[in-house]
């Protein structure tokens, strides 16, 4: 028998060098910029500004104003941003059925049965001079209040965190504690253009 010719060995020592070079290039250029943020839906535009705004009772509206100096006025009182979350939670839940906090109406909701659901709406208004940072902080606090309530109810009812629940149970909780944030149509007050 003839001996099989020996395969010439390829020198692969440099392939690691090439791979390292490429690796370092991609290491340097990679940016893990995960975009994080607060998701919101804008209301669709209304062509004609109709005056027939449905009357909402004053007790059902939680008015948050932010002025050009980034100061907060909540329900007619100046407030610090740190108190806003608790105040919003109190408004949304109205646990003691106080007459100055929102009304509730009876609704049939899956998993909960007949329950009384708050009719409260949060109204957020800002000036053109408000800084975006403050605006987002306020938005964040309002969102946080809603999220904390939802999580609390999820814990009581299903003994799980809200984020871990299946979608239909999440939807039921969303119906149980609706968090509605309405933003006023921007108005041009006075010499609006020159204001900065």
């Amino acid at each position, binding site marked *: 028998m003839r001996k099989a010719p020996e395969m010439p060995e390829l020198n692969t020592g440099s392939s690691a060098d090439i791979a390292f070079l490429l690796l370092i290039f991609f*290491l340097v250029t990679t940016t893990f910029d995960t*975009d994080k943020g607060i998701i919101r839906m804008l209301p669709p535009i209304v062509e004609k500004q109709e005056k027939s705004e449905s009357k909402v009772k004053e007790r059902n509206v939680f008015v948050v104003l932010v002025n050009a100096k980034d100061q907060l006025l909540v329900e007619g009182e100046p407030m610090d941003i740190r108190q806003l979350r608790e105040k919003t939670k109190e408004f949304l839940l109205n646990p003691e059925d106080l007459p100055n906090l929102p009304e509730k109406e009876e609704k049939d909701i899956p998993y909960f049965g007949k329950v009384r659901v708050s009719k409260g709406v949060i109204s957020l208004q800002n*000036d053109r001079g408000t800084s975006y*940072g403050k605006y*987002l*902080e306020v938005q964040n606090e309002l969102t946080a209040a809603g*999220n904390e309530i939802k999580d609390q109810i999820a814990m009581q009812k299903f003994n799980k965190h809200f984020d871990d629940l299946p979608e239909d149970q999440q939807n039921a909780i969303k119906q149980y504690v609706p968090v509605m944030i309405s933003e006023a149509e921007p108005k041009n007050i006075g010499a609006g253009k020159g204001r900065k």
Partner: protein
Amino acid sequence: MAVFRKKGSRKARMNLSSMSDIVFMLLFFFMVTTTFRSASLKVKIHVPGATEVKKIENKSLVSYIYIGRPTNEKMYGTEPRIQLNDTFKEVDDIRDFIASERAQKSEADQAKMTVSLKIDKDVKMGIVTDVKQALRRASALKINYSGRKDDSYLK
């Protein structure tokens, strides 16, 4: 004088053939995860901190609008400007921008399109409100206020 004898006349060689495999594996990982930034930023953006920020799931459905003070202040001044893709634009250009972004997406994805607003925290709300109104007119209603996880303003 003692004579030192060389120990081990044969050189010990390490087997390096598996190193290239490992390096290649890492290489492929970084090649796959790399996303080249499509636009170079011409504005300074320091997004505000918030606690309730969530990750955006599908990156291919997101279009970005940047608002901030120009990096090159000598050329463009210090007033906040809007950047779409690679250039400075005005509020009126947002409609066209949204239309072209929408055209790039498949029909099924158009409804799920998200516009991420990357806005510097010191920008005034006036320009932001104008942009939001323009987005409403262009019926791009799903927006994302970009922020980073930080709760220092509560302390």
